[in-house]
Every structure is written in structure tokens, then in C-alpha cells.
């Protein structure tokens, strides 16, 4: 493990990217910051710019309009970074499969620009906040 990977695992800062979700995963992500779950005690922090982030929390199906914006955000994130597909839509377009404006899922969009991207999946519609925390912990310990 090089020092970059080592530092990635400590106190990950995350940037939240919505690519066409129904809001639920997003609300649950914000919920992680509030007193009941409070992930800041683990050093996990939501940041305002992808340039400050160690990980992207991506929600939503990846609509046509969102595709190029998602790639741009991924490009701006310092590497190495982890892409978390939060929820059923991001993992595999979920209930919106086959829609005319759906270009996802998210891993397909990211892999087209970076085949070696580190991608982790947290399924659920929406995943419970506990599941999100568990997913992040599992992914980081697997790196």
C-alpha cells in the first residue's frame, strides 16, 4: 500500500453527486450528518467541492444530461478516489431501467473514462443510513 492509499482511508472527505435520483438517497446522506448518525465523529465530512474530496457519493440513475457533468466531477476529483454508488439506481438503474432519458448505471459512465476506477456499491432503495456507513467502512477496509 502506498502512502496515497493509506491516507485515503483515514478520515475520508466525501462529495455528494446527484445524477438524477428521487431525493431519498440524498436525504439519507444528509441524514448521516445529523445527531442520530453523526458520521463526522468518524472524520467523514461532506465537502463543497470535488477537488477536496477523497470519495464521491453518487446517487441516481445517470440521466443523459447528467452524464457529462458526472464525468467532469470525476475528472476534478484527485486520484486515487473511491466512487460509491449509493442506492439501487446508481448500482444498476433500478426501477428506471429502460427509460429513454437514462444513460446509466453510474459504474458504466465512470468506467468509460477510467477503466481502473475504484467503485463500491451500496444497494437499497434507499439504503438505510446504517447500511451506508457499513458500506463505506467495508469498502475502505477492502482497499
Amino acid at each position, binding site marked *: 500500500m502506498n502512502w496515497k492509499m493509506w491516507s485515503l482511508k483515514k478520515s475520508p472527505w466525501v462529495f455528494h453527486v446527484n445524477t438524477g435520483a*428521487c431525493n431519498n438517497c440524498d*436525504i439519507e446522506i444528509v441524514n448521516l450528518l445529523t445527531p442520530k448518525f453523526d458520521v463526522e465523529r468518524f472524520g467523514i465530512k461532506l465537502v463543497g467541492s470535488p477537488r477536496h474530496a477523497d470519495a464521491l457519493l453518487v446517487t441516481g440513475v445517470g440521466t*443523459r444530461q447528467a452524464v457529462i457533468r458526472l464525468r467532469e466531477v470525476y475528472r476534478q476529483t484527485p486520484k486515487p478516489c473511491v466512487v460509491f454508488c449509493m442506492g439501487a439506481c446508481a448500482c444498476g438503474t433500478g426501477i428506471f431501467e429502460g427509460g*429513454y432519458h437514462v444513460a446509466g448505471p453510474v459504474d458504466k459512465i465512470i468506467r468509460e473514462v477510467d477503466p481502473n476506477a475504484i467503485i463500491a456499491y451500496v444497494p437499497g432503495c434507499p439504503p438505510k443510513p446504517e447500511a451506508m456507513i457499513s458500506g463505506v467502512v467495508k469498502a475502505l477496509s477492502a482497499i
Partner: protein
Amino acid sequence: MNQQELKDKLAEIKDKLTDIQQPLDDRISLLCEAENAYAVNKFLFEEVPLRFVIATGIDAEHCFEILYHFAYDQLGCFVTVKAFIRDRENPAIESIAPFLPGAEWIEREIHDLLGIDFKNHPDMRRLILADDWPEGVYPLRKKMAGEIAKQWPCETSVRPTTESPARRTVKLSKPVLAVGPFHPLQEEMEFFQLSIDGEIVTDIDMRISYNHRGIEGISETLQFDQVPFLVSRVCGICSASHPLAYVQAVEDIAGVTPPERALYVRVIINELERIHSHMLWVGLAGHFIGYDTVFMWAWKYREPVLDLLEEITGNRNNYGNVKVGGCREDIPDETVPKILQEIDKLEKKTEMLTKAVLDDPIIHARLKGIGVLTKEDAIKYAVTGPTARGSGIAIDVRRDDPYAVYADLDWKVITQPEGDVFAKAVVRLLEVLEAVKIIRQAVKKLPKGPVAVEVKEIPPGEGCGHAEAPRGETFHYVRSDGGNRPVRHKIRAPSFVNVPSFRASCIGEHISDVTITLAAVDPCYSCTERLAIVDGRGSILHGYEELHRLSCEKTARLKKEIGPPEWKLEDF
């Protein structure tokens, strides 16, 4: 005006119509040809006057139909104008947006999805489809559905530039504040451009599409009983209201009445949803003006409500608890005392929060007189829900067209006349207390019995359903041809009419007040991520952090000017 008088009034324009139909007592359809639609709509909106709800475009094989839905709230009655466009090669119709700005977005949407030209429309740019969507491809035309996504793959190499259609239109001679499309905290993607003159906002332009998943198209491929699960995912926070409105539309068609217990369960779930949604808004509003304590409090109080919903329906959000003919899950008897206990606790906390928020002189100074939406503008933009009630318009579907068992319960519609952000905050906080009242009565009255009846088939026909979501009226229109799936399903979420009203409420405001004004309608999207102030040459001067800081600084400055609060912590 009673129903007979309404009918007499409608008879005044008989010569413009081909037929008047009344499939149900409170559903009136006016049929006309495309060239008369403008006059008929103008008459309904200005002379009767009715509230504009939405328009639906339908590809009916031999012609196009545009359905203009109007509501007469005093009677809970829908009047639908059906305009037929016979020319399939060059479909066109006169735009109603010049006298009804609330119709501007829906006409742009119909243009995108069905390729119908609206003559004299003030601003016929692309609204709902992606920038790289090919010209001349209309996804809701029957012959084009299906393989569209595969036939026209996305452009892979393009990077977002300043050349997107939304950006081109704002003249760059003035400084422009670009808001979006990403936000680190809030939910969805949305892109605003504010022209500014010094600190004052002079114009606003919006671009949506980032979140367009084509749900109306997907709905036509699902069976009637699968659709509630899809529409509960229109918006995660309104995930009880959307399926309810849909189910009521289908029950309209099938003539089904659900058992009484199911109606009570629907009310309880919907009011729990209203509480958690309003609490969520109060928290975010606090965050936007730099009061993170309010944010943490409100979201903490919201958690027990989510736990209750999980206990009843199996999921914290996206309950999908209604189905045609009743409910999917019943409220277990052992949960009933728990509901009463939790809402008692919640009531006390909400009263405390309401007192702390509404008595605070700094919040008064920060929110009063900010982002005013006047009553006239509110009618023109056809806004609904707390946004309308905060501007003194007393409309509420629960009272005007009572569904479920709202008519049997004792509660009141909260209105405030001012139209500013403070009024909207008051409306929401007091509505939480009303919702607690409703739940308490519904739980106590909860009758015994089944929660669903079996529905064998859905006959051909059309139905309208609406429900009062936390953000306003959710409207669903469903057309059935007797098969097992809808042939057309139109969804109108409340934000679709509330968001365009920014044009009336934001212009003339200070930049530091814009974040809270944009948040005041509780839009289902995010506004302020990469909030960047761009000067005339396009270089970025301020980011989101800067703008949030400006907003917080204004609060801090006011705090200093006003001095320490008169109440002490011990008062609570």
C-alpha cells in the same frame, strides 16, 4: 357559485366547443378544436375564474390531444379542456403562456416530448431533454418510444461548456451568478443563472433536465399495480402523496371505493410524511441562514417519525403503501399506542421549536419582507401548497376536494397573507401541529376491517387524481384503454409550478437573500452547490462557500445590531 351556476357560466362559450361531457359529478370535459383552445382557456382563467393545474399532451394515433386541466377549488371540481390537433405533420396550437405564465414550462415540456409547436410562446427553448438530445426526436410519440435510448447514444467526449442552451440566452454584458448544477448538501441538480446589478438580482433563468428520468414514459410500460412503486420514486419525500394521487385517478376510472380502514391508514401515512418533510425544510432553512442548531434540532425530531413509518410500511422512505382498492400494509394494533406516544412527544418539541424560531428577532429581521410572492403573482404562476398559502391563497386539496377521510376530521387550513419567506416558514411549522392533530384523531377513530378490496380489471376511461403533498398539490392524470397498463399517465409535481415563481420572488432581492428565497418554496432540487459569481469575462469570483458565508455574515451582523435576545435558555 354552485355547480349549476358553473355549468351556466361554461355554457357562455358553447359556440367555441364541440361537446361538453360530465363523466363524474365533479369532472367536466370541454371538447374543442385547436384553433378555439386559446379563447376557451382565456375565458376559463380570466372570466370564471378557475385555477390552472397543468396541461397534458397525448399522442392519440390519429391526432394529438392537449388537455388543459383547471380546478374550481370551491367545489373541488376539475374542468378539462380537450383540444384536438388534427394536423399530424405540423402540429401547432396557440400558446396560453402570454396571459398565464404558469403554463410556460408545461408548454415547453410538451414541445420537447411530443414536438407540438406553441405559437407566440415567449421562450420556446428546450426544457426537459438533455443538451445532446437529437432534434426532431420526440420520446412520447407512440411510434418513437422503445428503442430511443439505444438508437441515439450519448455523446461521450463532450465536456460541459458555457455553450449549453440555457447559458447562451443570458446576455453576458451584465454579471451573471451561476447556481448549480451540483450542491454538496442538498438534493438534486438544477441550474440557475441570476443576472446581477451590484448586489441586486435583476433577472433569473433556469435549466432543468438533469433529473429527468422519463417516468411518464416508463409508466406506460408497467402494469397498473406496478405503477405505484414507480411513482413513489418520483420524489423520495413525497413518496406517499404521488402513489395516492395516482391510485385515486385509477379508482376514478374503475369506480372502486376502498374500505374505510384503508382510508384512515392513508391519512395517517400522508400526515406522517407531511411532518417529516416540513421538519426537513425547517432544518435546511435554518442551515441556509447560518443557524445550524435549528438544522440539527429539526432533523433529530424528524427521526422518530421515520421510525414509525418504517414500523408500519417496512421502509423509512419510499413506502409504496397504497394500491388500487386500498393499502398494501395495515397498521398493526401494537403500533397504535406507539404512534400516539411519539406524536405527543413530537408536538411538545415542535411547539418549542416554533416558539424558538418564530420569536427570534434575528430570524424576523432575516426573513420578513424577503422574497415576497404577491397574491396576484401566486395566481398567475398557479402555485400550490404552502407557497400559495403563504401568499394568502387558501387552497388545500384536503379541504377543497376531500379525499380519504379528511372531511370527517377536525383541522384547519393555515394561511398567512404576507407572501415572504417568514410567512412560508410559519405556515409549515403550524401545519406540523395540524398534522399532529389529524393523526391523533385518525388513530383514535381507526375502524376495524380489511384494508383492501380486490380489483379485477381497469375499464377504458380516464381519471384525474390529486392529493395534497407537503409541497402542494400533486396531480395525476391516467388514461386507460381497457388493457393492463395505462396508455397515458401525466404527473404534475407541485415544484413544477412553484419553481417558476422565482421569477416573481427573486428579482430585486439581495444576493445574500437569494439562497433562502430559492429554498422557501421547498423545491425538490438543490440550488446552491457550485454557486459561482461570474463577472463579464466569465471568470469566477465567488463560490458556494463564499455565498453561504455572505448569508451567515448578514445574520451575524443583524445579531449584533439587534443585541442579545430577551428570552433566556431557562424559559424553555
